[in-house]
């Protein structure tokens, strides 16, 4: 009958084993949580465009993003696009960052001037905005304490809140809708639109339609919704890549230190056990496997705990702060797994050296 030595050694001091697992979980949680926060921002970044019903987005030449972006097209562009074969609908929108105020409370939004009042986005409450009205994202409405029927201010004008939409806000920004002509008036930008949202006829592929629009209308860039959304995600992705990498590195260092500490102190306290086992005939390689197995099991348990914690955070945080959305992606979990594997390998080095050098005769000395 084989004796589960690694498990018994690991569980001999439960407190230490648990502390080690918690430490490694915390280090991996740093990696996972940060990735999930940025992924959540990215998802919300494209929420409007994903749900706008547009197959192709037409912008000023060279423009294929909305976030922190300026695009100005002549209003006639929408008319020119609408007559291109394959276009079912061409809807011009104005798109500007704006401050929405209610009393002393304020919030920055992307204000979208749309004749359809944000259709086909589903309305969470109320109705689409008419003239003199505004439709707010629900989290902003709650933050401003601006229920339907109340009034808010933007560009020095007063708007009545007509309705609410959901799921478009991130920790960076929110979205609100007004009639395009209303926004055109306050901005003094008659005859200018920001983007044209194009719905394709069912028979045509979006990439073909985008190419056809670019060939027919000068001075525009036409992108399919997927290409546009990918480009949007790159904006935040590129800005945060270095920070995420740095965080992964720190998570790795902390993970190695914690795992190394657990493994080292555990091995030291068990050095006499190893000597006994070696005196009983346990081969050096088997002793090393024992040491590595303990570290591997600690890191694996830490990894599982980190996953559980990040999933718990992803479930709890949006309830506490609706714009803080954590998106856990398979790729990010894989990164954490690679970090965990690397932690195991590096952390195992010290105790493995001690175990390899242990003298079986030492058990008989006292």
């Amino acid at each position: 009958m084989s004796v589960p030595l690694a498990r018994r050694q690991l569980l001999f001091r439960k407190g230490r084993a648990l502390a080690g697992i918690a430490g490694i979980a915390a280090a991996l949680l740093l990696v996972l949580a940060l990735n999930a926060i940025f992924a959540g921002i990215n998802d919300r970044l494209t929420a409007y465009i994903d749900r706008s019903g547009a197959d192709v987005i037409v912008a000023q030449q060279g423009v294929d993003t909305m976030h922190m972006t300026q695009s100005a097209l002549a209003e006639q562009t929408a008319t020119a696009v609408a007559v291109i074969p394959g276009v079912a609908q061409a809807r011009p929108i104005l798109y500007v960052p704006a401050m929405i105020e209610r009393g002393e409370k304020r919030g920055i939004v992307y204000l979208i001037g749309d004749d359809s009042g944000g259709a086909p986005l589903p309305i969470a409450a109320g109705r689409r905005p008419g003239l003199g009205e505004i439709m707010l994202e629900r989290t902003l409405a709650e933050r401003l304490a601006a229920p339907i029927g109340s009034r808010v201010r933007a560009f020095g004008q007063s708007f009545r809140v007509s309705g609410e939409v959901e799921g478009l806000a991130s920790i960076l920004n929110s979205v609100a809708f007004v009639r395009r002509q209303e926004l055109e008036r306050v901005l003094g930008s008659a005859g200018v639109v920001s983007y044209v949202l194009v719905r394709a006829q069912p028979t045509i592929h979006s990439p073909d339609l985008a190419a056809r629009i670019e060939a027919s209308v000068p001075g525009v860039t036409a992108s399919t919704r997927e290409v546009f959304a990918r480009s949007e995600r790159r904006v935040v992705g590129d800005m945060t890549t270095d920070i995420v990498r740095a965080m992964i590195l720190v998570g790795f260092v902390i993970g190695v230190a914690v795992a190394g500490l657990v493994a080292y102190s555990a091995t030291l306290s068990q050095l006499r056990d190893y000597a006994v086992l070696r005196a009983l005939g346990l081969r050096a390689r088997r002793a090393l496997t024992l040491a590595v197995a303990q570290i591997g099991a600690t890191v694996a348990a830490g990894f599982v705990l980190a996953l559980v914690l990040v999933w718990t955070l992803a479930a709890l945080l949006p309830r506490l702060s609706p714009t803080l959305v954590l998106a856990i992606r398979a790729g990010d979990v894989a990164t954490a797994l690679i970090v965990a594997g690397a932690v195991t390998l590096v952390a195992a080095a010290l105790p493995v050296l001690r175990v390899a050098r242990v003298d079986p005769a030492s058990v008989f000395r006292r």
Partner: protein
Amino acid sequence: MTARRRVPIARRQLAAEPAKLVVTLVAVAAAVALVLLLSGLRRGMGEQVTLYLDHQSPVLVGQEGARNFLSQTSVLPEALADEIERVPGVAEATPIGQQYAMLRLHRRPVLALLIGYDPGKPGGPWRLASGRAPTGRGELVLDRVLASEHGLEVGSTLEYRGAQLRIVGLSRGTSGFMTPLAFAPRTTVNDLSRQPGTANFFLVRPEPGIGAETLAARIDRTLPGVTALTRDELAANDRRQFIDPFSAPLFAMVAIAFAVAILVIGLAVYSSTAERSREYATLKALGLRRIALFQLVGVQAAALALGGTAVGIVLAAAAARGVSSLAPKYLIAISVGSVVAIATSALAMALVASFVPARLLARLDPASAFRR
């Protein structure tokens, strides 16, 4: 004299296993450095977002309702400059254009803050590293760091919103993590936005002896349809706008890092205490009082916490310096306040971390020293 004073047990126990001591210090230092770097990055972002404003006139005028310089639209007729200059106390009002520019460099979107200004007037680059200030349509001054990151130099051409912009100069001290600066004549910026004859803001220079707040209030009262704010007020609003969203995730990261540091210290002290329980039992049997044993654990935990924190502060300072030379677009501004806060917190870490080993010692039976 007590045994504690004669024999430096705490120090000897820590030094008995140098590898473990180093690993513990590294772990605490990494956690501390992480906290300092994250809070420094957040502070640096705040400083960087107001980079342009910090170099401008003390009063700015925007469209009614304007509260921020960045992330908010403000459009006014450029002819308003004359009306502003007629307000008593105004020495000069200069229109500027301002917009985020999502440049496409190396096929990737790269964000910059594009300033449109009237050549020869305030609002342009304050320091040139090379080349000259833009004078004609389609000319551009780009931040030196942004240019070097993308292999651009004076004479390079850059396509933005369908227009060809020629780089005629590179500016220094205009780099920012999210918003490096670019400068072009206002006419060029207006053309790109199809908004001729407009300005986004007016930079207002007060006459000598006129306070910024007084002048802003006077402009607000005198001119309809505008909001006048002091530069400091706008800068504070921008900082809040950019930094506040990061507060919740940052707090979560800092909390995790603290938990890690406490765990590591606790783990190190607990394991050495547990391993030496026989020695402690002997000391107890020899008459060492319980309080002295607690002190022993406390001193070890405090030494690890303070030592790790000191190493962490040095690491963070070195990392901040390394980042500023290797990746100047990031500004990590580590404040004295955050260093003091983390050093104080280190003692709290030590206190929490020594709780479990102290309990172990309290329950230790002195008679166990004689058993085998």
